[in-house]
Structure formats: structure tokens, C-alpha cells
């Protein structure tokens, strides 16, 4: 009897967790496909009387005057900025992580870079603003790419360093004895061995940039550089916009991170432990 009760409790708890996760997201989806009259009906009937997918169509069209112009530009900016920043950071973080992992005695620098990564962005934002202004980089994608390096770089370095630590070093030593240079060892031996995790780490960095809001809000002002989070915040602040449309934008913006997270399940934990949480 007691065992049975335990089972019932377990399944009840599991259902509760599943419901609490899925319900708010499900409602977001229902909003995005309900006609405006169904949305505002009190008492709410939950399922729309009329399924309406036109909002997704509007968002994916570049016709002038449609919200799609805003959305697609923001999507492009987000993709470009996140990808650009991730590539630059990979190029810088790989040698740095290799150095931290293979040459002892510089751990202080590693911890310092991780510590500064946690300092609130408000402590950097004003000088960065003036810096970007001086070089005419406000409201440009390169400007945002540069700033985002400060977020992704320490995180990537830490993750890759931990990864390099777990690789066997005897092959590298043998290669060194055979006369390979340091960079040859890194390129031909260490990197191929670390490849699977390299991809995961890069995707994590990419997610950080995809999610960033504070700098993007302050350093961009129109569709030339505005990223998705800023555009979404702008949609919500607008008075006359249709809430179903905002919901549709949210759904579309969540697709890439949700897929990446499910795909990366296994490596997720080691990344999270090193500070991959997103404010």
C-alpha cells in the first residue's frame, strides 16, 4: 500500500512539473494562433474558435509596412552578431585555453578573467558607450560584436581549458619530441581531439550573445543593428500592437536556443557550472 502511494505521488509530482513548464509556453503559442476576438474573450475558452496562422506569414514577409521588416532585420542582426562574436572569441580562446592548460603558473589570470565576467555590465557600459561613439561604432553590428567578446571570451576560455585538461598529453609530448612546433601540436593533435566539445562550447557562447539585451538596448537604435531581444522589447512597449503578434515573435526567437539546448543536453552541465547562466 505504502509503495503504491509513493508511486502515485511520484507521477503526480512529475505531471505537476511537466504542466508548470509547458503551460506558460503553450499559452504563448495559443496566443500566437488565436484571432484577436478569441484572445480577449472573457471567460477565456483557451482553444481558439478559429486558428489563425497569418501572423507567422506577416513576420516572414519583407513587404514594406509589415512587422516582418523589423523582425527579419533583427533576426539577421542577431545571427550575424552572435556568429561573428563567437568566431572571434574561438580564435582568441583556443590558444589562451591551451596556454592555461599546458603551461602551469598562470591560474590567477584565468580566475581574474572569470571574476570580471561576473561584474555587473553597468560597471562597463558608460566607457564602452563613449569608446564606441568615438569610433563611430554605435548602432553598428561590428560595435556589438566587439562588445560581446567581453561576455563570451572568458566563458569560452574557461570551458575549453577544463576540456583540454581532460585530454591525454602523451601524444602531444611525443609530437613535440618529433619536432613539431607548439602551434602545429595545437592544430593537428589537440584540436581534433577536442572537436566535439569545441562545438558545444561555441554554441554556448553563441547562446550568450543571442540572449544579450542590456548592451544591445543601449548601443543600438534602429534596424541597422538592433538584435531580436531589443526588437521584442520594443514590440512589447508599443501601445497599439497586437499581443498575438508579439507572442509569434517570441516563439520564433526561441526556436534556435531551444533546439540547441535539447541537442546539447549532455554537455550542458559542465558549461552551466562555469557560469553559463543567463541573467
Amino acid at each position, binding site marked *: 500500500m505504502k509503495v503504491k502511494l509513493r508511486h502515485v505521488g511520484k507521477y503526480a509530482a512529475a505531471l505537476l512539473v511537466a504542466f508548470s513548464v509547458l503551460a506558460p509556453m503553450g499559452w504563448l503559442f495559443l496566443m500566437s494562433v488565436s484571432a484577436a476576438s478569441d484572445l480577449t*474573450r*472573457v471567460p477565456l475558452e483557451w482553444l481558439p474558435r478559429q486558428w489563425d496562422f497569418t501572423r507567422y506569414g506577416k513576420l516572414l514577409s519583407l513587404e514594406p509596412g509589415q512587422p516582418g521588416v523589423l523582425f527579419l532585420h533583427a533576426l539577421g542582426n542577431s545571427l550575424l552578431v552572435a556568429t561573428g562574436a563567437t568566431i572571434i572569441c574561438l580564435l582568441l580562446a583556443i590558444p589562451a585555453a591551451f596556454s592555461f592548460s599546458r603551461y602551469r603558473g598562470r591560474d590567477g589570470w584565468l580566475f581574474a578573467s572569470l571574476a570580471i565576467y*561576473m561584474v555587473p555590465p553597468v*560597471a562597463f557600459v558608460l566607457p564602452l558607450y563613449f569608446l564606441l561613439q568615438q569610433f563611430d561604432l554605435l548602432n553598428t553590428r561590428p560595435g556589438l560584436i566587439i562588445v560581446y567578446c*567581453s561576455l563570451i571570451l572568458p566563458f569560452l576560455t574557461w570551458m575549453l581549458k577544463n576540456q583540454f585538461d581532460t585530454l591525454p598529453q602523451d601524444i602531444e609530448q611525443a609530437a613535440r619530441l618529433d619536432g613539431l612546433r607548439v602551434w602545429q601540436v595545437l592544430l593537428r593533435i589537440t584540436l581534433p581531439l577536442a572537436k566535439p566539445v569545441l562545438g558545444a562550447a561555441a554554441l554556448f557562447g553563441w547562446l550568450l550573445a543571442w540572449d544579450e539585451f542590456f548592451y544591445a538596448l543601449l548601443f543600438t537604435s534602429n534596424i541597422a543593428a538592433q538584435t531580436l531581444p531589443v526588437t521584442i522589447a520594443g514590440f*512589447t512597449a508599443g501601445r497599439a500592437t497586437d499581443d498575438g503578434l*508579439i507572442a509569434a515573435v*517570441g516563439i520564433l*526567437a526561441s526556436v534556435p536556443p531551444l533546439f540547441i539546448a535539447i541537442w546539447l543536453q549532455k554537455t550542458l552541465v559542465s558549461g552551466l557550472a562555469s557560469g553559463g547562466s543567463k*541573467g
Partner: protein
Amino acid sequence: MLSLRQREQWQAWVLLAPMLLVMMLLTAWPLLRTIWLSFTDAALIGSGEAPGWIGFENYLFAITDADFRSSLWRTLYFTVVSVAIEGVIGVLVALLLNQKFAGRNVLRVLVILPWALPTIVNAMMWRLNFNPDYGSINALLTQLGIIDGYRSWLGSPDSALNAVMFADIWKNYPLVTLLVLAALQSIPDDLFEAARLDGASAWRRFRAITFPAIVGPLSVALVLRTIDAFKIFDIIYVMTRGGPVDSTKTLSFYVYQESFSYLRAGSGAAYAMLMTLLCAVLITLYMLLLWRQRCKGSAYEG
């Protein structure tokens, strides 16, 4: 001719230099510059004149500023309460996910979803859910008979902060769950089996086996969450913009307004530095935890 040791040192620095240089330029330099700004009367959109040095005036003003103090208390309330709740729910869900039941793997994936949802989408989603005229929360609670009529959750100063915290907890407890679950999975089953045979109660087993195994990762998760919660900005910007009547104005939002709405860069920098000093305590704690964990060579650090 360099000795082997010197050459190794040189190689190490060459590999490291580009990363360190970029970090200096993008973080260390701005930080020093913010400290300098905090002693001046700089404005965001200047008249072209160089900002004047005014010593500790910004700081003196900041610590006597009642608005700043109340936003500090608000931030502490937000941080302590939401992280505590995230800790409790996080551990409970992790314990559940460590049990054997049909559909466990599906649930493990589901729990990742809130964490993966972009912060801004999460904020916007809850803003819609809390909508006073047709939000799902009002509809659900009314239809279940828990409340009499629709309420303006985000529009009233009594409930706005708690509603924002609710959204933040929903999104962030999975972080605790994932880290704790990883630790739970590393406990060998026969340890529990042996304890059970020895007649240890469930509570005793938790105290003696489970808790010691999860305390390390749990503290890492909670400190990380504390640092993030202390900096909270995005979700507030989208859900309430600091309102109504400043009831959700946290420190980050306060600094943001001072610098970018009132354009007072000098005093904004002073507020930012005060906030950074408070945050530095937490960051030091986190670094100590990580350092200790590394010395122990704990397995979960990947």
C-alpha cells in the same frame, strides 16, 4: 640563446596575450574609466567640455539618497527570496528526476526548456500571461474559483515585484536542478542499498549520503544565481519598467535610469561602482568555491 624554461614561459605568454589584451580593452580599462567617471560631473551627452573633478560628491549623494537605498533593499529582497525558492524547488525537482519512473527522460528534457528560453522572451511571455484584461493566469485562477475577478498583477505595487520574481524563478530553478541532478547521478546505488539494509530512515539517508554529495554543486549553483539575480535588469525592463511607483526598480535599473534617462554619467558611474562593490563580495565567494572544488578535483566540473 634562451633556456628551455624561458622559452616555455615565452610560448605560454604569446598564446595568452591576444585574449588578455582583448579582455583588458573591453573590461579592465572600462572598469578603471568608470571609477574615474564616478568622481566627475560628466554628462552622457556633453557640451564638449571636459568633465570636472568633484571628488566624493557623487558617492556622498548616493549613500544619503533614500531612493537608492530603497532600491538596494528591493534588490536584496528579490535576490534572497527568489534564490531561496529556486534552491528548494531546484533540489526537489532534481530528487524527483533521480527517481525511476516512466517518462523520466522526457521530463529531464522538459526541465531544460525554461532555462533555454531567451530571457526577453521569458519576460514577454509572463507579461502576457499576467495580462490584466485577458491573461491566462487571471483566466485560470478565476475559472478555478481561487480569485473573484481579474486582477492587474503587474499594475499594482503590492504584487508587481512578486509577479516578476515568479517569472524569474520559473526560468531559473532548472539551473539548480541540472547541477544537482548531475551530482545525484554520480552517487552509486549500492550506497543507498547498504544504508537501507542497515535500517537508516529516509531522512537519515538524505542527511548522510545525498546531502554531502550535492552540497558542492548546490552552493555553486546558488552563488551563481545570487550574482545573476543581484544584477537583474532584462526581465524588469520588459515586464514593468521599474514601475508601478518604483515598486520593481532594482539597482541595475536605477543605474540605467541615472545614466541613460537622466543622462548623468558621473553620478550613474558612482551608483554603478557601489553596486559593483556589493557584487564583488559575492564574486569572491564564488571564486573561493570554485578554487576549493578544483583543489578537490571534483568530477562534475567536466
